[in-house]
């Protein structure tokens, strides 16, 4: 049986991709296997752990629950797109500084969820941070240092905003 393929047009981290994909290919597999962006992780494949969180058109989504064809025409941001070792994103810096990374498997998804929050609001309350991260499971940290890291990153955001308005 020849599998039917669908043509999709997806922008990932600012780069346009045009690919033929199977109708049942998830966005997660598209990112990891077709594009080689393995920073996005699979922890459960059922939308229950958040390890595969990416930002699609400004919203945090579980990429294991989105089909690549559903992402047609969308802008997707992954962990690889928000910072590099030479130019880390404030959240990446804060996660290192606060020791919020242990095994690191939840980290990319956690950072992407936090980014959606901070992009909207740079002075969140602790409860708002916890709420925003509550699709993301972490088994190593008890969340203490992750919450601290998001608070620290929020301060970076505020400073940046202040500097840019000066």
């Amino acid at each position, binding site marked *: 049986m020849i599998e039917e393929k669908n043509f999709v047009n997806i922008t990932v981290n600012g780069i346009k991709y045009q690919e033929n994909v199977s109708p049942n290919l998830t966005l997660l597999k598209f990112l*990891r*296997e077709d594009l*080689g*962006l*393995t*920073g*996005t*992780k*699979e*922890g*459960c*494949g*059922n939308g*229950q*752990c958040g*390890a595969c969180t990416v930002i699609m058109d400004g919203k945090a989504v579980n990429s294991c629950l989105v089909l690549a064809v559903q992402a047609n025409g969308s802008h997707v941001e*992954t*962990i*690889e797109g928000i*910072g*590099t*070792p030479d130019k*880390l994103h404030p959240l*990446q810096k804060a*996660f*290192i*500084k*606060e*020791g919020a*990374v*242990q*095994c*690191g*498997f*939840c*980290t*990319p998804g956690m*950072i992407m969820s936090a980014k959606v929050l901070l992009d909207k609001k740079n002075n969140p309350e602790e*409860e708002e*941070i*916890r*709420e925003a*991260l*509550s*699709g*993301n*499971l*972490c*088994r*190593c*940290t*008890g*969340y*203490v*240092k*992750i*919450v601290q890291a998001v608070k620290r990153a929020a301060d970076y955001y505020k400073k940046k905003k202040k500097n840019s308005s000066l």
Partner: protein
Amino acid sequence: MQKKYRIVGTSEPRIESIAKVTGMAKYTTDIFMPGMVYGKILRSPYAHARVTGIDVSEAKKVPGVLGILTFKDIPNVLYNCSGTPPSGLVIKDERILTNKPKYVGDKVAAVVAQSEKTCDEALKKIKVDYELLPSIFKIEEALAKGAPLVHSSLFKTNICSSFRVEEGNVEQGLKKSDYIFEETSRTQGVQTIAMETTGCVCHYTYDNRIIVWGTTQNPHHDRRILADLTGLSENRIRVVKPVMGGTFGVRQQLHHQPIGIFLSKLVRRPVKMIYDREEEMYASVIRHPSLIKVRVGVSREGKILAFHIKVYVNTGGYATQGPILLPSMSKKMQYKVPHYLFEGFCVYTNAPVAGSMRGFGNTQLNFARETIINEICEKMGWDPIDFRLKNHLQVGDKIPSLNDEVQSCKIEECAQGANNIKNILEKERCSQDTQIFNNPAIKRAWGISFGNHGSGISGRDQAAAVVLVNDDGTVKLLVGSPDIGQGSDTILAQIVAEELGLETTQMVTTVSADTEYTPYDNGTFSSRQAYVGGNAVLKAAQDCKNTIMEQLSLLYGVEAKKVYFVDGKYVVNTPRGEECLTFAEVIHKASFGVGGRVFIGRADYKPSTSPMPFAVCIAEVEVNLDSGEIKVPNVIMAIDSGTIINPCIVEGQVQGGVSMGVGYALYETMRMDPKFKRPLESDLLSYKVQFAVDSPRIHVCLVDSYEPTGPYGAKSVGELTTVPVAAAIVHGIYKATGYWVRELPVISNLKF
């Protein structure tokens, strides 16, 4: 506090941080290589059965299928998956693929194919005829007269192992006691829920070598067992640990590497096999469910005179680590008990297989022991902290049932530290939410427990390390115990940087672990990296430093005693005056040219003891008596882990350990469906794990302490932090409701 060291004791960021926050870190699941194909396992849907027929002909016809294996195609040998040093206790009772599955998920056949999807299609087309056999899941069922035997060819009973140790005479001790207390408690099986699921990529090459990249805690034990199973010598087998997404014990056992290797042997290509979450839930090892009976005798003055612990652990379908767990449990008595008896039994059932998990028997034991101590104190009107401190081991005391003496113990400081935090929290509370105080249905209370653990396997542990100095004065450290996410690569690098005089830890690259390059090591378990591994690394760095100092004395033509190491600098007392050199300057000067040397440090280390770290846990519990809702708003954990090499990493260990302990106490459980005889929990919806909104506020106190036998005074931390949590929560629930929970998790057994 005066700073004693330059680098030890500082919160250096993890050396692999940048790779992890940018998504560049490569885990097993991120491995893709030319020629790579995929493998999947057909697992038994029945808890106990016999395969009477298996037909793979239709499955073989699926396009893209490269090969199929059943038990008929694989060496029919028994082995044990445990990653522990060779021991007479280990029972060989499992097969790579079986025709007599003993739990839901037991491995019956395996497929190698072009894609994971093709594997799934082929698995569906393998026809297996099963004859169902009677299955048992609970300890009591397994012990009952006439119970079906799980391993009838090996044992005439379902008890596969027992262990007994007595010091003094417990019956006499009880006779001498003024009061005797007795209780039975039960604990459940739980999953580790490491975020990365179990996985491996296995390559059986054309020149008969094997390379395994995979999730593992002990590459050298894996190599030994794989050599046994394949008939290849150890020098032809390479086990590599990529970055690991947690484990918490679950990968101290071989999982499916043997299957991966035999699948790869069929096609001589790399075979990638990653568990999906459902497979992980029922087919990877869980924490042993337990049944624990405790009898305690105390004097009128509040002294413990006798302690009798009788433990049954449910190992499920295979023994794995069970027989080793029992003696390990017996060594965790942290009170001065003149008459001590530990009896342990490891019991086969058809429940999910149990193995290593954070705490290794101590979580279960601590719940039983600390709960009965709380009951004694509540009944007698004794203060639970004073009672414990009065009976606690102190420096110089012999540990019950062992010949080891306690060499460091700051338990009083832990109790004080925890209590101080509690007082602060209560003060803050008074000025805040009166709303809850106005609701008479909501009761709040604090519960307490003490905990301890070991630092490595006592008496039988060993580790080794190699320090290689690069031209530019940076260093490569080779160790055989993997960093599994806990941060050992960083703290071991800190030890090297401190000892050799490097400016920062970032100048050290830790390689852990790859059996091709890293020296033999027992692996990552038993909270042994900082203490056992740390001592080996310290000795290797010292070995390297000795060579450097020797070379400096030759180079300057001075006596050896005229070369010193002060404050991280190398000082040479020459006739022209003192010369002070940094590590990089020394290496630049001493490596090249006539008389230059290559600097290597090597050491192996065998500890003579396994020092106990200690903890005091105070948990706040909030119970709504109308709705039954239970919350744990605050958990305080004060620990004595000796010198803290990296405070940030240690705090993270405590916070994560507490979080895991709260889940264990309240709601995590692997239950068997009595009708369908399979686990009820098959995903992360049915199995409850804390998210950020559910998690308590966790408060950590690191007590200043020093273990004389530890590297720079360090002891262990990792497992300790989960151990005392459940008993503290259960104590809090009693104080709020007047009801003692005797069986974990709380949520399934609440009857007030």
